[in-house]
């Protein structure tokens, strides 16, 4: 009689574990669904709206074609080139390396 009464215990433990697992799975599924909806994760691509392309045209000065301004521009290019290419080391005119200890002493 006593043996008969003890047989239901493992079944009860197993059943309750099964229910717990089912609850966890359901919980995870619901959780993922909630997170997805919150961050709007969607597997289907949504149509994107392109921003309109805005091209900014430079405001052309009325002096853009002024001969004096163009001349200044050309002059400046020449000056810049001279500054960039000036040789300030001039190795050709550096002092010659001479020996200052030429003597024969016994």
């Amino acid at each position: 009689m006593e043996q008969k009464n003890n047989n239901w215990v493992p079944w009860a433990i197993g059943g309750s574990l099964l229910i717990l697992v089912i609850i966890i799975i359901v919980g995870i599924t619901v959780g993922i669904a909630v997170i997805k909806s919150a961050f709007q994760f969607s597997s289907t691509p949504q149509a994107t709206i392109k921003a309109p392309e805005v091209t900014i045209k430079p405001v052309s000065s009325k002096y853009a074609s002024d001969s004096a301004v163009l001349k200044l521009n050309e002059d400046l290019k020449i000056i810049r080139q001279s500054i960039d290419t000036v040789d300030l080391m001039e190795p050709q005119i550096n002092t010659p390396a001479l020996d200052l200890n030429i003597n024969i002493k016994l």
Partner: protein
Amino acid sequence: MAYTQGLGPCARKSVEVQVLFPAPVVIYYINSMRKFLSIFLLSAACCLLPAPVYADYQSAYNDYSYNYTVYRNTYNDYQVSKSTFLTYHTLTSQNDAIDKMRAVLKARDQVMLVYYNLLQEKLNATPGVEESVKITFGKIKESEKNWLTDHQKKIEAANSLEDLNSASAEFENRYPQMDTETKQAVGEILLAKENNLGGQVDQFINNLNTKLTEIRQAGEATTFADRGIINTKNKLELFRTKLTQSREVFYSKNSGKIELFTGQQKLLEANQYLREAVNFLSEIIKSYTG
């Protein structure tokens, strides 16, 4: 044959030749020959005229380069002879050492002689070098040239190692003075180059200011350009400070020896400020040209 009557046999022959060729051809031939002869004589006269010692910087440099190579070669020969003499002490090796030492001392003087010429030509060829600097250096060059020529004669006359040692010491005592003079000349050349560029930028600012005044008078705002010019002038101020510092290095007499490289570094810094000044000017121009 009518033309040959009354003439000698040679003349007769030439007239016969004239008869063989038409008159215009002969005249053309004679004129051409005259032209050719005059050109030939003129060229010959040009060749006979005394050529200037240094036509330009390049020939002065070639001369310097050649003499420096001669010096290096004679120095190597001198070292070999010196070593041989100090090892064997024979009369032959002594005579050889004297010859080689004489040669190297003369070559060393010659290098300095042509180096002075080189610097003079460079001063003449560099735009922006003041006339007074060229004249002063010319006088220094003449003085050193006289000293070096006399010294070479002294070396030529020396027949013993003692006399050659003494002549060598004379050069070595004189060298610090020559070193200072030549380094200052190099400094003047480099300063003139950079100063000349600064002058070009100044001139450009003047021209730009003229145009900006015109724009202002037309009722347009020039605020951006005005601000740019102030920035440019600030950079030019720094540029001039560096130039002054560089000049101080080239003319420093405290240490006894001029540090050429330090002066060059200051000039490079000055050049950097000049570039920055030009960048500001470029922005101003861009604001008008777009």
